[in-house]
């Protein structure tokens, strides 16, 4: 009789267990975990099989001809493809669309050859500078000049020197145009064959210049210009400082976008990793899949952060917002604040004014509105906990409802429980005639307590220790 391996049944049990876990805990981000940890499945599989074979050897049982059969290898390949594409789609890393498997071996066998490039052109005070088909690093600095000056080098990665020289000639770096528009062409798309060419450029431009860059990728480091910046690139790191005009960037896999002191608005589109925007005077829109850490600080105009599944909007942001996958924390916001998502997010909003509207699937919500008077708060979610800390002097009219979970009233006597109203759920309501506060979750606990908008919770509690509401014992309802 042919004896099968234990690993097949174990895999089935494992997959069944995963799906069961997702049904029991809907908050569990199963796909995210899979995307992150799928290689461990391969290791586990191999490890179990190895252990099994060693045990068979030790007990002198007949060994299979192949440790892993052809069919199993096919399954492994499918798992790799599935895992890698999932990984790429969830955006944890960017190797999949960028490089894949480098069969050419240029990175391994090739050599680097460098050729200096330079060029200059006289311009008006406010020219438009265009970087065409660019790949490499560009540092663009505004200065009190009326010319565009480019200096730097081309790096060609090639297997031999002749090919590199030919490529450098073929590309033919050029700076051309008239007083109002200067075009810098690196022409790296012209070269053919098994070569790779990048440019490192230092570009000095008039202060009033506007920049447009298009290309396959690279780093753009731009500072000290009063015009606008427009970037359209596959893999770009963008660093901007002291920009006077509008910034628009369409990226398909950036490592980082950082902007500091921009007078105009910022519009970011596409895919990438980290974003860091500070001191922006115009409206900010981020639309796409930026999977790293996103940070905003001191935005004078409305902010909109849009992903495929979520949208976050704030009217003005004197404080900070930090967004990582499934986690958003913000402090010092001016509303109306709006957050909508069909995914699970943990939200921590500290010190916000004007109205707040949250409509999301799961995750924990922790709200500490700071300033009084309180404005309308409306939180609706399917699962997850809601915690609301209100200043003791707040005027409000609260309704908190959960269909499955506990509500605890740490605020005090003006709130009363209303058990029977929603069947087996719970509801807490009451108030002193102020803004409407509505907290609804299908499944999860709700906590309403006193508290100030402060990062340190003990300090906030100590500060309001004198108030009568806080001195009352908490009332808890058992489910």
């Amino acid at each position, binding site marked *: 009789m042919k004896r099968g391996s234990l690993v097949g049944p174990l895999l089935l049990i494992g997959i069944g267990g995963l799906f069961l876990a997702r049904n029991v805990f809907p908050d569990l981000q199963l796909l995210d975990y899979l995307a992150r940890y799928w290689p461990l499945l391969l290791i586990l599989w191999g490890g179990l099989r190895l252990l099994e074979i060693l045990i068979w050897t030790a007990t002198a049982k007949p*060994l299979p001809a192949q440790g892993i059969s052809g069919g199993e290898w096919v399954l492994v390949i499918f798992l790799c493809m599935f895992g*890698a594409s999932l990984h790429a789609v969830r955006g944890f*890393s960017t190797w999949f669309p960028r490089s894949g498997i480098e069969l050419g071996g240029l990175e391994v066998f090739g050599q680097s050859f460098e050729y200096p490039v330079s060029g200059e052109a006289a311009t008006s005070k406010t020219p438009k500078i265009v970087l065409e088909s660019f790949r490499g690093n560009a540092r663009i600095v505004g200065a009190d000049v009326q010319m565009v000056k480019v200096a730097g080098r081309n790096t060609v990665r090639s297997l031999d020197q002749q090919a590199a020289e030919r490529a450098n000639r073929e590309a033919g770096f050029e700076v051309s145009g008239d007083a109002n528009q200067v075009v810098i062409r690196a022409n790296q798309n012209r070269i053919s064959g098994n070569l790779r060419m990048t440019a490192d450029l230092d570009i000095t431009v008039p202060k009033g210049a506007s920049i447009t860059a298009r290309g396959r990728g690279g780093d753009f480091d731009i500072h000290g210009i009063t015009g606008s910046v427009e970037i359209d690139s596959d893999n770009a790191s963008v660093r901007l400082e002291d920009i006077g005009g509008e910034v628009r960037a369409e990226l398909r896999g950036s490592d980082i976008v950082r902007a500091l002191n921009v007078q105009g608005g910022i519009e970011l589109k596409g895919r990438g990793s980290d974003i860091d925007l500070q001191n922006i005077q115009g409206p900010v829109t981020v639309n796409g899949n930026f999977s790293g850490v996103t940070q905003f600080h001191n935005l004078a105009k409305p902010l909109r952060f849009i992903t495929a599944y979520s949208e976050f909007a704030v009217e003005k942001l004197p404080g900070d917002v930090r967004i990582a996958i499934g986690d958003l924390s913000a402090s010092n916001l001016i509303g109306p604040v709006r957050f909508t998502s069909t995914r699970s997010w943990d939200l921590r909003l500290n010190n916000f004014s004007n109205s707040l509207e949250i409509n999301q699937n799961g995750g924990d919500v922790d709200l500490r509105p700071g300033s009084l008077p309180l404005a309308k708060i409306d939180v609706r979610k399917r699962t997850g906990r809601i915690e609301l800390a209100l200043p003791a002097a707040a005027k409000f009219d609260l309704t908190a409802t959960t269909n499955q979970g506990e509500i605890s009233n740490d605020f005090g006597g003006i709130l009363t429980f209303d058990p029977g109203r929603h069947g087996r759920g719970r509801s807490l309501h009451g108030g002193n005639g102020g803004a409407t506060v509505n907290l609804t979750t299908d499944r999860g606990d709700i906590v309403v307590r006193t508290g100030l908008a402060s990062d340190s919770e003990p300090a906030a509690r100590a500060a309001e220790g004198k108030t009568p509401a806080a001195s009352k014992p908490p009332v808890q309802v058992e489910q």
Partner: protein
Amino acid sequence: MTSDALVTAIRGPILLITLGALMALDQTDRVSFGRTWPVLLILFGVFKLMERAGARNA
């Protein structure tokens, strides 16, 4: 002969573990799989050599 059979039997699982490890390294963004894949070839070659050595001894 038993050691020969053992080598063929554990070849698959060890390759699988290596593949998993390389993929895991790739995911942490330390070394891309595009750089490390030849390790699999080398490992495969080593197993082939061991197989030959085993056959000669037998």
